[in-house]
């Protein structure tokens, strides 16, 4: 069977369609502004566009549209669910829970329970998250919940089982969902990347690119892989392209880190300034999405112990999980607060997290605390899990 008939549409085509749909709905709404159905559809299409572009401005525009629709039409389930998803995406965990509570019955819906599992994971209630996901998959075997369970396994369980679950998720997808397929391939690649299997990661990233061409998210992962393989110039060039398309500050920071690694600090500084300005601008406007990045920024890139600790504490206060705990532990360590750093990294480790970076961080903290045996144990564990964990990586 010749397969060439199946034309592969990628990012640009999907974005163009999303823009067309948005324009069509906006035009329709000019004639009938009180048409709830069109307003809801528009909000979802805007969210679709925002998820495509990855641009914060598109996300904020979507959120404004949803807020306005809720104000005008009341807390409709689909609007509240979208609002909750946006808040969860932006790390506003409490807001997301409030959104789900706005519409009676919504919290008990399948889609809301899925989001609640995400929130539980974000807040460190891992067992509850897993249980909910298993229940949801039993009720309805959707690809996205299989992927969520895979993510759980990848961080806290068995990476091989995670990969198997990602494959099962892929098996649920049709040719009409190629972006989701590509995203799953990227997740599978990341799974390999995190354990140092760069060739396998590349295979998945290539599949992602073949199945959904032109996706900046794929380029972002490929750039990270190139950086980890010390192909810094190529990585930087690719990152520059992605930055032009998305304006994501975390990628501006990543580019700067590559420049620093290659001794081009002068070129790095303007990008660090830009990234920092974007992070702070977001905070100034009430955002919490970049708290984690700010903590990393002041711990690793422009070390500033007080700033690092302040941002890490803020993030930790919003969502206590192995990731925020590890970031806080590193900031405490940087500030010489060794006892508190030990307690915090122990909390992160107690989650069962399997992450070479966190193990490596634990090794450093235990060493500073004079706990040499544990330090060696975690240093070994980091190496065992990912012999290349010291390579370049992006703070996703």
């Amino acid at each position, binding site marked *: *069977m010749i397969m060439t008939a199946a034309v592969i549409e990628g990012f640009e085509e999907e974005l163009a369609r999303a823009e067309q749909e948005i324009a069509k709905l906006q035009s329709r709404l000019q004639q009938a502004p009180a048409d*709830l159905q069109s307003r809801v559809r528009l909000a979802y299409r805007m969210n679709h566009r925002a998820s495509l572009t990855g641009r914060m401005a598109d996300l904020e525009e979507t959120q404004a549209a949803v807020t306005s629709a809720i104000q005008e039409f009341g807390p409709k389930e*689909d609007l509240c669910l979208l609002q909750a998803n946006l808040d969860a995406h932006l790390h506003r965990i409490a807001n997301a829970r409030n959104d789900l509570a706005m519409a*009676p019955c919504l919290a008990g819906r399948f889609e809301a329970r899925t989001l609640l599992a995400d929130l539980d994971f974000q807040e460190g209630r891992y067992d509850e998250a897993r249980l909910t996901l298993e229940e949801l998959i039993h009720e309805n075997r959707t690809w996205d919940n299989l992927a969520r369970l895979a993510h759980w396994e990848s961080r806290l369980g068995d990476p091989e089982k995670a990969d198997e679950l990602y494959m099962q998720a892929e098996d649920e997808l*049709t040719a*009409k969902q190629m972006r989701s*397929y590509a995203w799953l391939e990227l997740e599978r690649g990341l799974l390999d990347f995190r354990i140092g299997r760069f060739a396998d990661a590349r295979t998945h990233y290539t599949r992602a690119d073949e199945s959904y061409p032109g996706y900046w998210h794929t380029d972002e992962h490929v750039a990270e892989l190139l950086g980890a393989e010390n192909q810094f110039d190529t990585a930087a060039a690719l990152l520059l392209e992605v930055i032009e398309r998305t304006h994501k500050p975390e990628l501006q920071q990543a580019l700067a880190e590559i420049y620093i690694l290659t001794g081009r600090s002068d070129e790095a500084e303007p990008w660090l300034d830009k990234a920092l300005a974007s992070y702070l601008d977001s905070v100034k406007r009430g955002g919490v999405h970049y708290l984690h990045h700010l903590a990393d920024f002041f711990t690793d890139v422009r070390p500033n112990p007080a700033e690092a600790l302040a941002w890490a504490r803020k993030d930790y206060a919003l969502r206590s999980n192995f990731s925020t705990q590890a970031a806080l532990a590193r900031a405490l360590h940087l500030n010489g607060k060794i006892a508190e750093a030990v307690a915090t990294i122990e909390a992160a480790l107690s989650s069962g997290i399997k992450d070479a970076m966190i193990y490596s961080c634990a090794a450093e903290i235990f060493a500073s605390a004079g706990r040499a045996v544990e330090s060696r144990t975690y240093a070994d564990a980091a190496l065992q899990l990912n012999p290349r964990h010291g390579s370049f990586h992006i703070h996703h």
Partner: protein
Amino acid sequence: MADHNDPNAVNHIFSDIDYSPADLYDLFGWPINGGDKVVFALTFASAPAAGVLDPDLLYRLLLTSHPRVAWPEKAERNIESVLRYFDAVRDKYLGELKTAEIRVTVLSPKRVLIKFLGFPCGEFSKEMDVDTNTSIQTPDGHTISAFVGGRDDAFFNDLTGFFRSINYAPQFYHVPHTMTEARELPIPKTLLELEGNDLFNCREDMPKWGYTQLDGTTPKLDLPPGPWAWKGNSFKKDANGNFRFVYDGRDCRAQQNCNAIVLEIPHAFISPNVRENRLVNGWGESWVRKAAHKVESIPDEPSWTQHPWKAVREKELDDELRKYKLVDTDGQPFADAALSEREDDRQMGANNFWLGPHFIKRLAHLGWGFGPSISALGLKTSFDHDNSPVSVHKTYDSAAAAFPRIAKTLFQQLNMPDSSWNPKGLPIPLRRAFEVFVPNVCAVDMDTTGSWPFGRRLEDQVATRFLALFLDMDAEWNGKKYHIDLLSDQTLWDSAPIFPKTPPNPLKNDKEFLSAFPYLAEPWPETW
């Protein structure tokens, strides 16, 4: 509504779901040439456009041919006997019956590959252009006529009236996809408006409410907060004492297109023994290519089969089908919309045996709505509603509890309007409801005209005939026994205390069918 807008995964009635070429509409089947040939027409949503096919889709028409089987006249009429029948059908379909298949894969939007698999003469295939009548010579010397492409949608129906009758809220209200309990609202289903039914009664100030427009939009209202209930105790009557019909007989599919696969096939090509095998059963399926197989370089991945129906199907999947995912099935009109409730995991085609008990419960649920409506009009109903003066909302947890109410509906022979359906005058038994819907196939009797339920001809008003299941076929109207077309008889409505005085659904299609292959009318110009 035959099979439009289902299953829910491709039900574009929801605001976040687009038209999908995987949404099968109807399967028509009837004999021609005195029963020497059979025509099957599988119709589906014309996405991306009429006459333009989606290369990610695969369509199957599955066929079996076997002798006519008659339900023993003196057989017991109880729940056990019906369940035994379902079991026997299951054994037949999963066991002895050999299924042949005509498979259409889309090579490009304007060209398809049509494969013939499992027929007595062996396997062969042919490439053909879309929108072109094509003659296909078979290895055993037969000629098959084939057409794949855009046509006028052959279904003519007051879709909105049907939705109103079953309280299907997404047609009238903005219903978020999350609110699964707000699809069929829990008030009595009915053919006559209920007094004080503010949820679904017609609104004179909103004549377009719930009617899909030619630009694809449907004017809807904001769903009132629940609980949704009806507290009345009677049908609504106007100042003249007339009931208000939930139907108005308009053709909601007027000027709308479909894509279609139409085949004219010699019976002898399907079966080596046409003298005995007088039935040709057909059912259609739509499959969408799996993501993992969109790009050839991506290797095959194993398929995980958690669902029982998948376990059955996995056995029959060949290398090509494993690259696709089943989305929709179509055999009998109303098997999905009215009986399977569009559930995604009930898309089973002929293999719908395990839905048998559900079918009994669902038919009884509908009976409590339609039975009292029929009685109120002065007609006799096959449903036992204890002389309820008004429709009742009632659901059943067990088929055994539902069965006594629906026994006559299930077992009564469905009278035909006249003898024209049986041109050879053969002793062909009339069909019964349970035989019609399980298995979910279009069962064409090659000695009849193929008029529903002996097949399905293009001109059959199947929506109105479906309602006739609830008529008491022993009763008489104007000196003649009730029959499946009685509700299409204008004189009945002229004398009934009802407004508007119209059969529930249009009597004919908005465009004349063709007298020759491919029979379905030319498509309408598309503007959206």
